[in-house]
């Protein structure tokens, strides 16, 4: 299993030399999705909360970095500009996560899902209406000198994605992850054996917010332009959930497979099949069928356990 994982990462490491620029972009964006999905799974797979607000951290990271890059004094700092912009983006996202954790974790189940879904809509409304800061619906440009090529972005995103999956792997075999799973299993029991519930919940949300915000920064630097629909679209929150569920939540490699499959599906539907009718129709129907036919996700489905190579991955 170790060989399989290391081999795939190495393969992804040399892949950019063989890919055309459009495929490079597809891969870069897929890594960003994987980061969001892996982060989503910390809350769903380990802590048992359905978080439909993962995209809020992504958008927040993208916006904070872009706004800072547009400040004239910031642009004089040289390389430090990137550090300060990315650092503040991560800091703001983590702070947002920590502050929001207090009201959010008073809720559970359906209510938690909807309250987190609102986060992204709230940020959307703010981004649209605080036009002096964010450019409103016209969006915001990254100054051209800070633009990041897709080649560089690919490696940064790959590193970040590996790190995000590694976090989940760490959680799957550490006492911290065990504490999360305890809370997922039974909130009250976990409290009565002395776990500080609120502390762990805040920690989970903050850990999950950092890579997502960094993914937002990478996205903004690469695309050079963000607006409320691109950076804070509702699919930024919903697709990670769907990807994690398709792959199987609570497994380390489930999100990887789910993200991969949905991205392949998206690419085929939107770039290759020039269907006479809109691709979104088939995409939506496929999502529906997945939800109906594979309730636990691929990693837990019985037929994947029959494949020896995947069985090892599924057991993590």
């Amino acid at each position, binding site marked *: 299993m170790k060989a399989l994982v290391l081999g795939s990462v190495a393969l992804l490491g040399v892949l950019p030399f063989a890919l055309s620029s459009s495929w490079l972009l597809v891969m870069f964006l897929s890594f960003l999705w994987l980061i969001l999905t892996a982060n989503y799974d910390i809350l769903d797979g380990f802590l048992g909360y359905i978080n439909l607000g993962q995209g809020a951290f992504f958008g927040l990271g993208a916006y904070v970095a872009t706004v800072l890059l547009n400040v004239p004094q910031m642009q004089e700092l040289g390389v430090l500009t990137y550090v300060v912009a990315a650092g503040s983006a991560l800091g703001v996202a983590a702070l947002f996560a920590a502050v929001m954790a207090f009201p959010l974790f008073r809720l559970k*189940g*359906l*209510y938690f899902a909807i309250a987190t879904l609102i986060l992204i809509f709230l940020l959307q409304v703010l981004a649209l209406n605080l036009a002096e800061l964010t450019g409103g619906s016209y969006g915001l440009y990254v100054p051209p000198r800070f633009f990041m090529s897709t080649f560089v972005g690919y490696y940064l995103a790959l590193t970040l994605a590996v790190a995000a999956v590694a976090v989940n792997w760490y959680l799957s075999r550490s006492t911290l992850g065990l504490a999360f799973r305890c809370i997922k299993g039974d909130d009250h029991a976990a409290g009565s054996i002395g776990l500080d519930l609120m502390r762990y919940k805040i920690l989970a949300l903050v850990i999950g917010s950092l890579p997502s915000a960094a993914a937002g920064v990478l996205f903004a630097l690469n695309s050079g332009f963000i607006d409320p629909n691109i950076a804070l679209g509702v699919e930024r929150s919903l697709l990670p959930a*769907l990807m994690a569920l398709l792959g199987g939540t609570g497994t380390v490699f489930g999100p990887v497979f789910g993200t991969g499959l949905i991205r392949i599906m998206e690419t085929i539907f939107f770039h290759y099949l020039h269907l006479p009718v809109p691709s*979104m129709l088939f995409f939506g129907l496929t999502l*529906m069928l997945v939800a109906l036919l594979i309730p636990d996700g691929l990693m837990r489905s019985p037929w994947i356990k029959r494949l020896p190579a995947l069985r090892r991955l599924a057991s993590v």
Partner: protein
Amino acid sequence: MARGLELVISGLSLGGVYALLAFAMSLTISTTRVLNVAHGVFFVWGGAFFVILSRHLGLHPVLSIALLTLLFFFLALLFEWGIVRTLLGRSVHLLLVGSIMATFGLGLSMESALGYSWVTFVDPYPVFSSSLVMFPVHLGGVSLSGSRLVILAFVVVTVTAFHLFLQRTFLGKGARAMAQNFDGFLVIGLNPFRLSLILFSLAIVATAISGAFYVLAVPLDPYQGLPLTLKSFTVVILAGVGNLPGTLVAGALLGLAEVITSQFFGTVWAPAVSLAVLFLVLVFRPTGLFGKGLD
């Protein structure tokens, strides 16, 4: 004063439609625990089909509504057999997750199917409104939009019908039992599948018809469905899941708040109202303004 009355009427009619949407949603969530994200899309489809039938095919509005009822009854049957029934046996967490995912996928494809076929077959301009012109009603020197009064009347009639169904009929009592205590419901030998079929057809047909009434006053576009679902969630949670009379009050409050906000702070802030209200209610009163939550 005249302006104030107009504001109240338009706020109430808007809120009434929100309340109806939320009413249907609350009924299905509290009984089956299936969260239908495509709910608002059925609303938009109802509006679109009404415009096609009554305006483009030139049918009488009443006949259009009758055909609409029939069409959406079949759609509801498909929805219940295809999606709800598959989900019903699952554990609470998986049921919630599966229903969000499946109905989100359904909503996406319904939206794009409507958006595409509207532009291709009906009208290149993707906004639909009804051509039925309602004359303004003069009331003590104030002229009110007739279409808004029709909507208000429709809301009152439908809500009363729902209320009577739930309070007086055997099936309605069964639905309340299912929401209150599912095990008890099973013990007395009622059939949850049959009831869920009936409730979903009622909910979807009522939603589609309220869409048809909505386009009398406000134009809709094909991609408004999912945001409307969120708005109807707002009302459901504001009232508390399963609290049907509260839904009516909450819908009216939200409609008024939105109309007043867009009047005094500009239309761009109107969506923020429902979001902020929803967030505050969730945080400070998770069981809704009027108590009795789902969990």
